[in-house]
């Protein structure tokens, strides 16, 4: 339960988060269904929407930034995200450039 609902306020945060989530899903859906872009472009667009939506859910619904440990949890999540990006992008870079590119 968020603090807002405890105090009896209307849960605006959840409603807004819910609406944005639906919008993001619909846009991603539309991109895949009604555009004739190349499939890799569509993949990238969907991926970006997915990451935005995941972040949205963590912040809006799952109280990541709230409470006494909010800052810590957010910081660690961002650090984890950073490490994941470094590992994936770094590995992709290494495996597709240089001599390795020629041998593959």
């Amino acid at each position, binding site marked *: 339960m968020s603090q807002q609902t405890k105090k009896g306020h209307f849960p605006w945060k959840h409603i807004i988060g819910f609406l944005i989530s639906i919008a993001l899903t619909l846009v991603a859906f539309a991109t895949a269904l009604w555009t004739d872009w190349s499939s890799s472009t569509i993949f990238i667009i969907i991926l970006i929407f997915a990451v935005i939506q995941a972040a949205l859910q963590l912040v809006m619904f799952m109280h990541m930034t709230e409470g006494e440990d909010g800052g810590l949890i957010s910081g660690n999540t961002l650090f984890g995200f950073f490490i994941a990006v*470094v590992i994936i992008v770094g590995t992709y870079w290494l*495996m597709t450039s*240089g*001599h*390795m590119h020629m041998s593959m």
Partner: protein
Amino acid sequence: MDLKWNEFIITGDPLILGAQISILLGSIAVVAALTYFKKWTWLWKEWLTSVDHKKLGIMYILSALLMLFRGGIDGLMIRTQLAKPGMEFLDPQHYNEVFSTHGVIMILFMAMPFLIGLINYIVPLQIGARDVAFPYLNNLSFWTFFVGMALFNISFIIGGSPDAGWTAYTPLATNEFSPGPGQNYYLLAIQIAGIGTLMTGINFFVTILKMRTKGMTLMKMSMFTWTTLITMLIIIFAFPVLTVALALQTFDRLFGSVIFTLQGDGNPMLWVNLFWVWGHPEVYIVILPAFGIFSEIISTFARKQLFAYKAMVVSIVTISVLSFLVWVHHFFTMGNSAEANSFFSITTMAISIPTGVKIFNWLFTMYRGRISFTTPMLWALAFIPNFVIGGVTGVMLAMAAADYQYHNTYFLVSHFHYVLISGTVFACFAGLIYWYPKMFGHKLNEKIGKWAFWIFIIGFNVCFFPQYFLGLDGMPRRISTYTEADGWTGLNFISTIGAFMMGLAFLIFVVNIVYSWRFSPREKTGDAWGLGRNLEWATSSSIPPHYNFAVLPEVTGLDPYWDMKEKGLDQQKNVDYKPIHMPNNAATPIIMSVIMGAAAFGLVFHWYWIGIVGGIGIFITMIARSFDYNDGYYVSVEEIKETEAKANK
């Protein structure tokens, strides 16, 4: 896998036969002694199923000392084989196995458990806690580590050891080039131990964040606690990569997938990449706690607060980020693009900046301090110049273009021994001697300790300094022999003498443990050195009672115990005791881990039915654990009063 009996148990080598016989006799002696003195129940109740962080810490350290012995013997065998050209002490196959196990054991089964043991014992005390956040998990961590270690160690007498180096590079480590069970041992043993390490990472990360005593904000934590926190963060992010990489190679070897193989669409270089994505942060996992230990010791024996505490914190946090950005420097020569090599070259050099900051901070901590030259302080003092030599040669190796010359030579071998021994091993010795009275209630003999220290550091430099020049002379690593014409004889012989000096120093250290156990005076207070600064010294007796603190201490600043002594406060003498909640012992972790070990042992030999039965067994123990509603017990006020009265006598 069709194995003949004589292929299952390794036969035909006198060295291995000797080891088999001594292991057999040793096991019989231990079992006989335990039965004769009726100690089985004691062992089970007081140690094997204990969730007390202090006992687990001691068990970690004992295992690590055992592994230091085993890995050290491996090292001495390598140096004996290389002492003179054309030696026939080890054949090339045996030599490959010995250097592979030497590397794995020293990093994963010696350095890590040694540091985790010290962390286990000291960190909960330093943050003023009564145990870790998840005591059950702590016991499970220990047993998975122990079973992984045992599985790895039996490889040399049953089935054959891994022989593809500690890095197990594919395609060499694939079935095609390394048939037989050795490499399977490597994969499964490290996998099991790695699970334990990951759990330790989560456990201590949560412990430090959530269980600090009243008043201890993050910026009031001791430096050892800080380095532990950051180490655990690195473990949490680095070890999953190892888990995945090992699992993929296991699939390749056991189930015929083609991920890292030369056949099919396999890419052997991906293994190298993934291994070092984990492997480089791993280096910082074993060095950061060492930095913490030296910080504690230097500030204690210089009688000064650590210089530039904030800069220290910032530099370890920076190191934790940079440690994930440098992994390619382990394989500059693999054929990466020039852009990639340049990028990782620069990040690698950048990491020497926060490390340099720390070196200066230690020097400034000692500046104008009144230094006591105790044995732990000597180890800490020796660390600084030796580590700088290792660090400077590291910056030389960081230059990608120059690395094409140094790569895979003894220059590299010497570099990483300089950083790992003078960093981690010195810290393990220093930390163990420094906290020894906390663990066992008496100090180690200073005189014998100083002998061990001097012989070790002289031996260390005699062993590894010549190897820089051997490397520059072109001697490659991992060769089992060389010829007179190569011109490496003299330096190799000197190096071997140094190795045996280190072996002698280790023996003296062990003698010191036995001697001090018999003759050292017993400590009467919690502050054995009289100079303690942090809360681990604030306990009422020299070995803390099992609940650590009768009353949880309150903290107002850095070096809280020093403050208390200055102000003449003894918070532990407060008489208003309350019952203390403590966790119960647990038997499932050891059972679960042993089943894991048995299942993995089956998989090593492709006996899948053992793996399947073992897998079911693991699930059964997990289910048993989830129906375990035991939530601990209370230590009564009477018992606390009695214990504290005894301690304050």
